[in-house]
């Protein structure tokens, strides 16, 4: 039986030493959907992605991907599962000592014994899908940020995964690359039958393409819903985030002692 939910996260918590990052997160991603996890910087979004990828294990709760429980897998099992996943890192994380072609061919060469001709065809297909077939011979250092991101995307889908995760796919891109990348994610999800999970704080761009959004703040999910739900949401936090307002529940100041006490104004007057 095929699970309808490809990713199921139940009551997951995680901490770096004494600092709790995630406190009881529930999240599901259905097959064929584009899911966005949004929230301000440093709220634990990337940690959540690393949990789904099995790079870290939660201190509490369970995560399931494609019906397999992440905590119970050994190294070999985890590696088997990861072949069904692709991940796009924030700045692409292309292997700098290999050409674009070799980067995309990397997984094919590592995990299969395909002849070089077949690999060549598959790599060119993937590169064509992201519109960079002509850049196959370039080195990563010769690419712009947006192109590197697209090559990394071609690399992530090289083994036709069921799940692709994107860590800040829109960060640092110009408006044109932004639109191109967004459309690409949607199109690839639909044509290849993927499930995509985006971690982002770019609300406007991602709301155009996603099916379902989770808002994370201080380690808990504060809001969820479809793109329209979110736009219409009356929750102060979501409203502040979607409209990019300076005033709201998220304050400009990092928690600190009262300003007056810090400046020792009280002491001097005493």
């Amino acid at each position, binding site marked *: 039986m095929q699970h309808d939910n490809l990713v199921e996260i139940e009551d997951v918590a995680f901490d770096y030493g004494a600092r709790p990052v995630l406190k009881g997160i529930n999240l599901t991603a259905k097959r064929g959907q584009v899911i966005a996890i949004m929230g301000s910087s440093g709220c634990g979004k990337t940690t959540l992605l690393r949990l789904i*990828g099995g*790079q870290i294990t939660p201190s509490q709760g369970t995560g399931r991907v494609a019906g397999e429980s992440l905590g119970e897998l050994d190294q070999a099992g*985890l*590696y*088997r599962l*990861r*072949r069904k*996943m*692709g*991940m796009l*890192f*924030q*700045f692409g*994380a*292309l*292997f*700098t000592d290999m050409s674009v072609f070799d980067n995309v061919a*990397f*997984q094919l060469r*590592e*995990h299969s014994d395909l002849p070089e001709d077949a690999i060549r065809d598959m790599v060119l297909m993937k590169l064509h899908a992201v519109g960079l077939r002509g850049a196959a011979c370039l080195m990563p250092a010769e690419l712009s940020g947006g192109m590197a991101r697209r090559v*990394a995307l071609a*690399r992530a889908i090289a083994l036709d995964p069921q799940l692709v995760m994107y860590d800040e796919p829109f960060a640092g891109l110009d408006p044109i690359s932004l639109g191109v990348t967004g459309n690409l994610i949607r199109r690839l999800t639909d044509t290849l039958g993927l499930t995509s999970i985006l971690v982002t704080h770019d609300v406007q761009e991602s709301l155009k393409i996603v099916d379902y959004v989770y808002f994370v703040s201080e380690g808990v999910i504060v809001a969820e819903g479809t793109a329209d739900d979110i736009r219409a949401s009356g929750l102060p936090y979501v409203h502040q985030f979607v409209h990019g307002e300076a005033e709201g529940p998220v304050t400009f100041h990092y928690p600190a002692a009262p300003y007056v006490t810090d400046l020792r104004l009280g002491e001097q007057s005493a």
Partner: protein
Amino acid sequence: MLKQAIAHLGNRTLQGVGRIGFAVRFFVAILLHSGTAFRRFGLTIREMYFSGVQSLIIILVSGLFVGMVLGLQGYETLQTYGSEEALGILVAMSLVRELGPVVAALLFASRAGSAITAEIGLMKATEQLSAMEMMAVDPIARVVAPRFWAGVISMPLLAALFSAMGIFGGYLVGVQLIGVDEGAFWSQMQSAVDFEQDILNGVIKSVVFGIAITTIALFEGYDAPPTAEGVSGATTRTVVTSSLAVLALDFVLTAFMFRGLS
């Protein structure tokens, strides 16, 4: 104040011991994940190009000069005792036993070791290692182990080249320039230098140095904080730590190898 100093010392000691523990576990992990480095030997060959072939120039030139200096200095000292013919022994013994393995290792540490640390550190900082893990490829097997074995294979070859070049340099200065008898130079050398005692021990030394340097370099890179300062600090630490390790190991190995010689 004193309490603080002692606590600080204790803290540093614990950290140091902890790091050594991590390094040892890392070393064992490299050995356990070495299958790929041999099954796909092309990966190791590629790294041998970067650590071995690219160190050739510095090793050959340094070896030549060290040998030439040995020839000059040795001649100055030996002629006071009227035994210039022993120049061959002096040059060959110093090089094969000590200078070859040790100086080649120090050069290797600063030339190849630092490069390895910087490369691995940057791969970590730019998430290339994480990306590899997410692609179900073990970075220890794919990235670290080939570099380790490339270093371990290259080191004795470089040390041998250093010694050979040095002996040639000593020959150039001693025989060609100063005019020590050529026959005496080679024959005295041959009768004094022993295969097992001198050459084999020199090779063993350089293999041990190769293991130490590459392990330190790889560990520092793998352990480096993923920032610019982190990587540059790790590179410096590689050169310092591995040079000290080479000299200390050299003392220990020499004590074991030549103790029997009264």
